[in-house]
């Protein structure tokens, strides 16, 4: 669950309000301090008074810094240390003169409150995520003077859920930019009629230049100077013509996926309700999805349901220690690589190290600043995502590898049993793939495989999972999806794939795929493995039925599964 995303502007405004309130209270606080200091008499009886002064100065140092009054904070710290030294030494040395100087400097503190010394508080980290549900249409603007090429490309891009607005001149796109922005901008480099190179003249089209969406250049010319200019313009790609649409779309999708990565999921395990609530809010503001665990015994259920990417674990809890809970988590095969980070007051280094040997990956000391917490969690989740990808994903397609998708299917079907919702398992296979490899080579074959993978990734939802099952075989598990809807989805993919035109060294070719699917509603009580076998049999039937088609497994027609 996510709360509404907050804009940096809004949060900055709120913080400015809090800062104003603090500023309003400060003069009274400083006055109180001065009054206290006047009560110093240079005798041992001063000690409790000095302690109070020290405490107040300490507070000023801390909160002043938090609210951006760095000068005030720095000065308060200087005075704080001085008082600390007096307290720990003998009061004899604190003579009249020293006390007078102290009073003077204390009085000067209020000078740091004047308008001109108020620095700009950096905006807190607030993430805005572009909501993208897979299957949602994305808008591309293509500025290409070759109208036929433009229309051909638009047609191809449509298969990948990209809706293209076509412009033949930069000026037209510039004008349109007054009224909106695309999700992605593709510019041709050479415009023959005007005799212009877009990488050279983009400065004259400010609306296009300042667009925040990703920018791609396409060109028949592999010109180094143009490439350099493209880089300077912040373009994420420079693609050569003749265009290889699957390759282009692959690049485009990678860029967009990176921008729209799903929020990081964090589970907080801490028995202090106030603290857990505060940390949760801090992480929520940073765009993460956060849940808190109150009952430690249910930690495994919670992890199975919420699937956190990181667990923030307090070490000292009344019933079960953080270290013991971490130990239980590590008993599960599929939770070996779940990042567990202790967040604890524990300052003893040896005890920290000992705790880490019990299954945690890292140790953060409380108290921890909000910014530091966000940075630490973010870094660890990103690293875990990278490693998970490296380990479990096929490098060509970005989909799960064979073993991982099989495991995922088993787990997802189990989950569906718990929720009582239907789940469908699908197997897809490219038709006559061997022929593609033999005729056009393995590079072309790779592109065809990438195209299927792309279509899959684009069509399925966040809750669905897809993998590369074999060389030209794919498998997917679709949550909360009955046979009808699964069939619709696969049909859509089948048709889009059949419409693609691949280009290899000037030769154009196309491909088709066959697929089989099995739904838990027709196979109640079946495991993920059994559904996978059933969908494979349906795929076989599709191949034998003439290929380029989808077949739904039905319990009646299948042989008995042992």
């Amino acid at each position, binding site marked *: 669950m996510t709360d509404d*995303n*907050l*804009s*940096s*502007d*809004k*949060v900055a*405004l*709120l*913080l400015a*309000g*809090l800062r104003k309130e603090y500023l309003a209270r400060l003069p009274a606080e400083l006055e109180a301090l001065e009054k206290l200091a006047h009560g110093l008499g240079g005798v041992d009886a001063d000690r409790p008074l000095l*302690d109070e002064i020290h*405490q107040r100065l*300490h*507070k000023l140092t*801390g*909160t002043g810094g*938090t609210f951006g009054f760095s000068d005030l904070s720095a000065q308060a710290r200087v005075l704080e240390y001085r008082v600390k030294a007096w307290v720990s030494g003998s009061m004899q040395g604190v003579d009249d003169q020293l006390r007078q100087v102290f009073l003077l400097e204390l009085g000067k503190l209020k000078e740091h409150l004047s308008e001109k010394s108020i620095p700009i508080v950096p905006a807190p980290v607030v993430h*805005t995520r572009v909501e993208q549900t897979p299957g949602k249409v994305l808008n591309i603007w293509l500025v290409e003077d070759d109208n036929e090429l433009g229309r051909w490309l638009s047609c191809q891009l449509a298969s990948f859920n990209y809706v293209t607005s076509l412009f033949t001149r930069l000026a037209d796109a510039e004008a349109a930019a007054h009224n909106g922005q695309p999700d992605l901008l593709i510019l041709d480099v050479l415009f023959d009629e005007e005799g212009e190179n877009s990488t050279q003249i983009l400065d004259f089209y400010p609306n296009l230049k300042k667009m925040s969406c990703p920018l791609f250049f396409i060109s028949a010319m592999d010109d180094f100077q143009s490439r350099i200019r493209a880089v300077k313009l912040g373009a994420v790609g420079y693609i050569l013509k003749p265009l290889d649409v699957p390759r282009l779309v692959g690049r485009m999708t990678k860029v967009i996926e990176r921008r729209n990565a799903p929020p990081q999921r964090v589970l907080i395990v*801490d*028995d*202090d309700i*106030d*603290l857990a*609530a*505060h*940390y949760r*809010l801090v992480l929520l*503001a940073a765009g993460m999805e956060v849940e808190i665990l109150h009952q430690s015994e249910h930690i495994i259920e919670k992890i199975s349901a919420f699937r956190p990417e990181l667990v923030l674990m*307090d070490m*000292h*809890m*009344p019933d079960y220690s953080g270290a013991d809970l971490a130990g239980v988590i590590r008993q599960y095969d599929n939770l070996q690589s779940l990042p567990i980070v202790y*967040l*604890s*007051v524990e*300052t003893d280094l040896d005890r920290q190290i000992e705790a880490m040997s019990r299954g945690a990956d890292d140790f953060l000391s*409380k*108290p*921890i600043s909000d910014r530091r917490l966000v940075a630490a969690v973010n870094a660890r989740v990103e690293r875990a995502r990278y490693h998970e990808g490296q380990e479990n994903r096929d490098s060509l397609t970005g989909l799960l590898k064979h073993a991982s998708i099989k495991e995922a299917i088993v787990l997802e079907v189990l989950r569906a049993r718990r929720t009582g919702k239907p789940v469908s398992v699908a197997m897809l296979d490219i038709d006559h793939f061997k022929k593609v490899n033999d005729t056009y080579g393995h590079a072309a074959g790779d592109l065809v495989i990438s195209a299927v993978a792309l279509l899959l990734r684009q069509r399925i939802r966040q809750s669905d999972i897809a993998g590369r099952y074999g060389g030209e075989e794919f498998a997917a598990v679709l949550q909360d999806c009955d046979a009808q809807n699964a069939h619709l989805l696969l049909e859509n993919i089948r048709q889009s794939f059949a419409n693609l035109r691949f280009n290899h060294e000037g030769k154009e070719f196309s491909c088709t795929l066959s697929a089989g699917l099995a739904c838990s509603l027709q196979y109640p009580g079946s495991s993920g493995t059994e559904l996978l076998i059933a969908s494979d049999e349906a795929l076989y039937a599709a191949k034998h039925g003439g290929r380029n088609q989808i077949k739904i497994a039905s319990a009646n027609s299948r042989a008995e599964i042992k």
Partner: protein
Amino acid sequence: MAPGGLDPAFAEQFAQIRQTFILGLAKRESEIEHAPTRADLNAALHRLAGAAGAFGFEDLSQLARSVMEASHHDDEVHLLKVMAELKQTLKTIRSTG
């Protein structure tokens, strides 16, 4: 990014949580004072140290940790001293917020 416009919900939530913490200080102090076992005392101090730090009460957090250390090292004299400081700080916070 959405255009600017005051969204009180967010700051209000933070403020509410902080207020809840301050109001709960009396209970925390009682937990510390009347802890039946050392384990309970440590747990209460640990919670206080952690939470206090998050809400900006650095000295309170530090004091709670000092009490934990003194208790761990069985230093009666120091324990009494820091415990007194802790109580004093709690009192100050509760009265000034």
